[in-house]
């Protein structure tokens, strides 16, 4: 116990940072796909589908990610589904991210002006064609900045995956701190590393927003 911050500690933190990046990518990939489905479900012509997806979004957005992760890993195991930590974290993050991205994207789909829908309808395009060829290409442009902005939140939120045994950046910092008891130095380093990962993305998203000439904003499921 005790001792001073050395290269090995930094290496350990670096390893944690890699996990943070990896988990973020998994969350974004899985959550992106599922979020797309949620977004489509939220604007579905079927009322039951709309309602169901709305309930899903409300439930997930009302529950802390920590609890989702816990129930996803241990809860599923308790009813007989043994998932590896990676699969469980991936699944939980996917569920979580999907709810948020789904909401963001629904907003973007709905913000395509109504006359565009009508113009497409007037050209005899089918609903799928309208969606794929007219609405989504426009929605994607609107959606890019807030989506990129949301990535920052994902990066920070992966820290909760420590509950299923991941030693990502935040947890590795805690472990190092618990043998060194140097909270300022260590948390300052962690803050800087997170900042270094997040700020370029924030900046990029702001740049995109500015280029699109509209002030979108992103929420912080901190």
């Amino acid at each position, binding site marked *: 116990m005790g001792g001073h911050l050395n290269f090995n500690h930094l290496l350990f933190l670096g390893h944690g940072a890699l996990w943070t990046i990896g988990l973020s990518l998994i969350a974004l990939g899985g959550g992106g796909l599922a979020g797309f489905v949620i977004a489509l479900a939220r604007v579905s012509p079927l009322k039951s589908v709309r309602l169901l997806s709305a309930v899903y979004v*409300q439930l997930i*957005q009302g529950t802390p990610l920590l609890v989702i992760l816990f129930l996803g890993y241990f809860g599923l195991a308790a009813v007989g589904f043994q998932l590896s930590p990676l699969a469980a974290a991936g699944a939980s993050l996917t569920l979580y991210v999907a709810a948020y991205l789904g909401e963001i994207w629904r907003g973007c789909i709905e913000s395509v002006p109504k006359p565009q829908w009508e113009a497409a309808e007037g050209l005899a395009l089918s609903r799928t064609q309208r969606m794929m060829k007219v609405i989504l290409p426009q929605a994607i442009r609107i959606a890019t900045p807030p989506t990129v902005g949301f990535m*920052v939140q994902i990066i920070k939120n992966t820290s909760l995956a420590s509950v299923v045994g991941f030693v990502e950046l935040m947890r590795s910092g805690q472990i190092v701190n618990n043998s060194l008891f140097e909270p300022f130095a260590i948390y300052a380093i962690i803050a800087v590393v*997170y900042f270094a990962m997040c700020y370029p993305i924030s900046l990029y998203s702001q740049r995109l927003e500015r280029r699109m000439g509209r002030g*979108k904003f992103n*929420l912080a499921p901190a």
Partner: protein
Amino acid sequence: MGIELDFPAVLERWPNFLGGAILTLELAFFATVLGAFLGTLAAVGRRSHSLLIARTCKVYVEAIRNTPLLVQIFLVYFGLASIGLKLSAFTVAVAALTINVGAYTAEIMRAGFDAIPRGQLEAAEGLALSRLQIYWHIILLPAVERVYPALTSQFVLLMLASSVCSQISAEELTAVANYIQSDTYRAFETYIIIAVLYIFLSLVMRAGFWGLGFVLFPRRRRLGTPL
């Protein structure tokens, strides 16, 4: 792989859960009120003609938005103590949450400000209103009305995020849950209960914001149309 769930064993601690839930709501309430104020100031500051003020506000917003809340809480809690300021965990938690949500509020409010058409501002200037009067009458209220759903979501997220305050000895809902589950080792029951409680709390908050909006925006109440 059967796990026997014994909810009564955990539910008999309901006074603890209740206490935790109330503290969580209290944290959320104070941080929301103060954070809304701080965030609005920062949003106004970012539009300031003084480069120094505008930059400072930007640095504040970016530094907070790009680092985890937990780190911020630690730095405030231990930082203040190291310079001899011994505040209660509750005070520190409220302060840290305020600083955190203030940054997000600032971004949302800024978007709201930007959405006010230029013509509105010119019309107000043409009526000889002062800068302060324009901010108050023409910018602030419509901006808030416009971004109200985003603000609501942000403050609900704040309530959920307040769980990390358990780390600095604030006995909010997650802290209570951790205590109970390590005392009884009944983690599943505990986590399921707090999941339900958090969902309930977030519904309570949304209802509260809905009611507040009802009072705050008479136009919307009467016409039901978005601004």
